[in-house]
């Protein structure tokens, strides 16, 4: 019993320290890449711009699976008891969505696309079936990239 408690405490501390470090690092990298790819517009509209340019189109997508650390998962269990806003999962989903979007955008940018249309997100929880272990999500972002035809 006492060893279990020590083990849980150790995991909490390790999870908190390393998890926080990894999250900060990830956010720094997200911000940097978002800045680099910001010139590429991404819209949820289905309609093509009526600018007279003829485009070639292709499906682009980006996906990522991110797991939350032990400390935040523990926190979420506590949140589960009291209800209310599960603040510890907010950053997990935020990071996953933005990372997936960035991967999609970089795929589009590598094909010299000028616009990505009709962007959709698809979110799945990886550990859905296993009860208390929910804490990893996969996010897929996809859309139609418009590549101007070089005529």
């Amino acid at each position: 019993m006492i060893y279990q408690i020590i083990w849980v405490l150790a995991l909490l501390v390790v999870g908190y320290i390393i998890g926080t470090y990894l999250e900060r690092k990830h956010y720094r990298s997200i911000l940097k890449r978002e800045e680099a790819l910001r010139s590429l517009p991404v819209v949820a509209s289905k309609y093509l711009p009526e600018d007279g340019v003829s485009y070639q189109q292709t499906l682009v997508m980006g996906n990522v699976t991110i797991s939350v650390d032990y400390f935040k998962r523990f926190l979420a269990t506590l949140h589960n008891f009291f209800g209310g806003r599960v603040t510890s999962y907010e950053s997990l989903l935020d990071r996953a969505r933005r990372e997936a979007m960035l991967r999609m955008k970089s795929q589009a940018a590598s094909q010299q696309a000028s616009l990505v249309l009709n962007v959709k997100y698809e979110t799945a929880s990886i550990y859905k079936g296993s009860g208390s272990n929910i804490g990893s999500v996969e996010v897929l972002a996809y859309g139609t990239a418009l590549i101007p035809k070089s005529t």
Partner: protein
Amino acid sequence: MLISNLEIIPDRKVVKHLGLVQGSSVRAKHVGRDIMASLKNILGGELVGYTELLSESREEAMDRLKAQAESIGANAILNVRFSTSSVAQGAAEIYVYGTAVVLE
């Protein structure tokens, strides 16, 4: 084969609608990935193995989607949607569907 999640393709007319086509792929993670993933579950961060697994799985689903569309003589799939569901613990189904059409 043109795959797009738009409903209309500029400059090209849809000649024939061939109905819904779909591709699906169910994959489970293997033990090696599981061990890495359980470690990552403590520390947090990206589960690279799973990301790859799911994109491979998605590619397979798209191949099947294309195969269905080709077999019925379509040359494009429009309004494509992805959907993911966890069927059982550790197994995910990737499902992709769209409208098969013949373009001019």
